[in-house]
C-alpha cells in the first residue's frame, strides 16, 4: 500500500506556565532562576528542580496515527483546542513533534494563513512574487501563473498600488489567489476559507475542488461543516489532542454535532490571562432561564455571556453572532445596539449579559455562536480583546404540539410569523 502521508504516535506537549512566561522572561530572571536552582541542587543534590520551575505539561496532541493514501481528501474537525492546527503545524514542519514520527511522500505545501509574508508597503504585483516564494514557488513558476493569479484575484486595476491601501477584501482575494495556484502533491489547509465574502468563499471552495479533482492529497481543517462535507471524502474528529473517531464525512460530522449536543448549553472557558477583557462563559438558556443546548422554535430563548473586564475600556463592543451549520451568519447582536449614541465605556469588573431571542425567529436547525469583545486599550488602539469562534453549538427544535402553522419542513434560516393583509 502506498501512502501520501503517515504519522506514527505523533504527540506534542507544551510546558505551560513556563511557556506563558517566556515572552516576558528576560535574562536577569533566567540568571536568577538558574542561580536559585543551583543553590537548591547543592542543598538537595538528589531532588529534581522541577517544582522550582513551575512546569505544567500540556499535551496538545497525543498518539496521532494517521494514514492517508494519495488523492484522499481528509477533513480534520473538532472543537477549539482539539489540536487540529497543531497537527497541521507539525506536518508542515513549522514546529517539531515531541514524540512520534511522520512521513510525507511528495511535494508539500501548507496554507495556514493567507498572505503570509505579504508586506504592506509592497505593491500587489511585488507581493505576488514574494508570497509565492514564501509558499515555495520559484520565480519562473510564478511568472508562468501570474496572469491566472491576477485574474483569480480580481484586483488587476490595483496591481501597482501598495497593499496597505487595499480593502481587506481585496487583500484577502489577492493572498488567496497566490495560494490557490500552488502546485503541490500534498496540500495542508487551515481554515483559510473563513475569510472574504460569500461569493469569494464559494470561488475558493470551487478552486479547492478543482485541486482535489486533480488527484492531490488534501488535509483540510475547518469549522465549516458544509465545506468539509463537500470537499472531503474522509473526516477525522479530534478532541483534546486525540483522534476519537474517523470515517465518512456524514457520520463523523454527525458525531461532531452530537458532541456539541451532549454539552449542557453552557461553555466555561479556561482563564487565559488575556489583556483587557476575557470571555468566561458562553451559554444558551431556554425561556425558563435553564441552560440547555436545545431550545424550542416557538419559545423565546436567551444567549448568555459572562465576561470580565480588567481595565477601563473605551469604545467597547461586545458582539454575539449566530451562525448556521455551514458558517453563514444569521445575525450579529451587540450590546450597544439599543443605545448607539452612548459613550460605550466599560469599567473593570465582572459582567453578565443576557440577550432575548424571540420565538418564531430562528428556524429549526443547528446553530453555533461566535463571541467577540472589542475595545480601545491605552497604547494599543481599538483591538479585539477576546473572541471565541463557533464556541457553542445549539439546536432549535420543533415541538409539534402547538402552532400547526409552523411547519417542520418549511425551508429557510428564519421562520418569522408575519402579518398578511389579504384582499380580494
Amino acid at each position, binding site marked *: 500500500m502506498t501512502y501520501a502521508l503517515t504519522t506514527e504516535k505523533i504527540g506534542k506537549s*507544551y510546558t505551560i506556565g513556563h*511557556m506563558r512566561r*517566556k*515572552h516576558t*522572561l*528576560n*535574562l536577569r530572571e*533566567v540568571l536568577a532562576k538558574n542561580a536559585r536552582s543551583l543553590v537548591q541542587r547543592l542543598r538537595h543534590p538528589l531532588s529534581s528542580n522541577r517544582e522550582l520551575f513551575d512546569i505544567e505539561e500540556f499535551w496538545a496532541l497525543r498518539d496521532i496515527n494517521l494514514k492517508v493514501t494519495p488523492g484522499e481528501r481528509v477533513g480534520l474537525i473538532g472543537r477549539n483546542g482539539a489540536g487540529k492546527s497543531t497537527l497541521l*503545524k*507539525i*506536518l*508542515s*514542519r*513549522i*514546529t*517539531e*513533534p*515531541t*514524540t*512520534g*514520527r*511522520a*512521513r*510525507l*511522500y*511528495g*511535494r*508539500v505545501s*501548507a496554507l*495556514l*494563513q493567507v498572505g*503570509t*509574508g505579504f*508586506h504592506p*508597503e*509592497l505593491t500587489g504585483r*511585488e507581493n505576488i*512574487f*514574494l508570497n509565492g*516564494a*514564501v*509558499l*515555495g514557488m*520559484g*520565480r519562473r513558476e510564478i511568472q508562468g501563473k501570474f496572469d491566472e493569479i491576477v485574474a483569480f484575484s480580481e484586483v488587476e486595476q490595483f496591481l501597482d498600488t*501598495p497593499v496597505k491601501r487595499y480593502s481587506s477584501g481585496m487583500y484577502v482575494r489577492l493572498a488567496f489567489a497566490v495560494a490557490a495556484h500552488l502546485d503541490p502533491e500534498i496540500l495542508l489547509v487551515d481554515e483559510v476559507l473563513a475569510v472574504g465574502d460569500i461569493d469569494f468563499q464559494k470561488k475558493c471552495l470551487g478552486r479547492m475542488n478543482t485541486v482535489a479533482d486533480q488527484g492531490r492529497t488534501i488535509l483540510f481543517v475547518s469549522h465549516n461543516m458544509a465545506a468539509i462535507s463537500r470537499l472531503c471524502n474522509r473526516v477525522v474528529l479530534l478532541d483534546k489532542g486525540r483522534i476519537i473517531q474517523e470515517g465518512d464525512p456524514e457520520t463523523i460530522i454527525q458525531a461532531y454535532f452530537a458532541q456539541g449536543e451532549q454539552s449542557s448549553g453552557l461553555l466555561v472557558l479556561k482563564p487565559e490571562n488575556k489583556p483587557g477583557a476575557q470571555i468566561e462563559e458562553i451559554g444558551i438558556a431556554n425561556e425558563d432561564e435553564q441552560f440547555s443546548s436545545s431550545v424550542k422554535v416557538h419559545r423565546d430563548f436567551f444567549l448568555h455571556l459572562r465576561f470580565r473586564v480588567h481595565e477601563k475600556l473605551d469604545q467597547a463592543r461586545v458582539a454575539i453572532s449566530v451562525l448556521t451549520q455551514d458558517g453563514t451568519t444569521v445575525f450579529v447582536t451587540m450590546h450597544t445596539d439599543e443605545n448607539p449614541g452612548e459613550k460605550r465605556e466599560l469599567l473593570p469588573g465582572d459582567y453578565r449579559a443576557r440577550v432575548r431571542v424571540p420565538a418564531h425567529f430562528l428556524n429549526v436547525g443547528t446553530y453555533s455562536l461566535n463571541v467577540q469583545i472589542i475595545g480601545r486599550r491605552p497604547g494599543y488602539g481599538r483591538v479585539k480583546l477576546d473572541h471565541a469562534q463557533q464556541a457553542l453549538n445549539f439546536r432549535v427544535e420543533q415541538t409539534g404540539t402547538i402552532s400547526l402553522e409552523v411547519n417542520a419542513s418549511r425551508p429557510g434560516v428564519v421562520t418569522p410569523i408575519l402579518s398578511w393583509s389579504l384582499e380580494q
Partner: protein
Amino acid sequence: MQIAEITIEPRKQARHIWRELWLYRELLFFMAWRDLIVRYKQTVIGIAWSLLRPIITMVILTLVFGKLAKLPSGEVPYPLLVYAAMLPWQFFSNTFSVSANSLVSNSNMISKTYFPRIILPTTAMLTSLVDFLIAFSIYILMMFWYGVYPDWRIVVLPLLMILASLASLGAGFFVSALNVTYRDFRIVVPFIVQFGLYLSPVGFSSNVVPEKWRLLYSLNPMVGVIDGFRWALLGGEVKLYMPGFILSTCLSLLIFLLGIRFFYRSERTFADII
C-alpha cells in the same frame, strides 16, 4: 519543495541543511529584494541614503580623530584611511544588527510557514552587501580625487569580504536565535555596534595601538578585516600585522561555525516561543 520524502521526527538531525538552502535560494533573494525595496519606500531621497550615511560618518570620524585628536595616518590622506575602514565596518554592523532582529520581526512567517529559518538572518547580509557596493562607488571617486591607487593587492578584497561575512553572519546567527527567547538582545545589539565602532580601528589606524597590545587587540575579529581592507586598498605604504590578522581570521571562522551550530540547535523551538 522537491524533496521527495520528508520524515518528521523530534530532534531531527540537520542533514539536509545545505540542500534545503539551495532549494530555497530564491526565497533568500526575494527577501533581500523585499527589504531593499521596503527600506526606501516613502522616503524623499530614497537610495541616496545609502550614500549619505557612510559619507557623513566618514566626515565626522575624520574631524574627530584626524583633526581634533591629530592621530597619525602615515602617508595616506585621513579621509581615505577612515573610509577604507568604514566600508567593512558598516557592512559588518548592518548585517549584524539587522540579522539580530530578523527572526523577531518576521515572527509571523516563522509561525505560519516552513522554510529554512537561517534564510532570515542571511538576508541581512545580502542587503548589506548592496549597501556596501553603493558605498564602494564613493570610494572609487575618492580614490581618483586623492590619487591613491591600489596595486595588485586589491584582488584579495573578495576574500576579505567573505571573512567579514562569516564574522557578521556568525554573530548574527547567535544573537538572532537568542533574541527569539530573550528580547534583551534587542537592546544589547545597538550598544555593541555603537561601542564596536570605537573599539575597532575605524576612525584611526591600528598602528596607534602599542605593539605589545596588538595581538590582544586582534581578538576583535573586525580588526583583521579592517586592517586587511586598508592593506588591500591603500597601496604600498600600509603593512599588515600578520599574527593579528591570522588570529582575527581564525576567530571569524570559529564564530561562524559556532553561530550556525547554535542556530540549528535553537531552531526547533522558534515557532513555539516566538
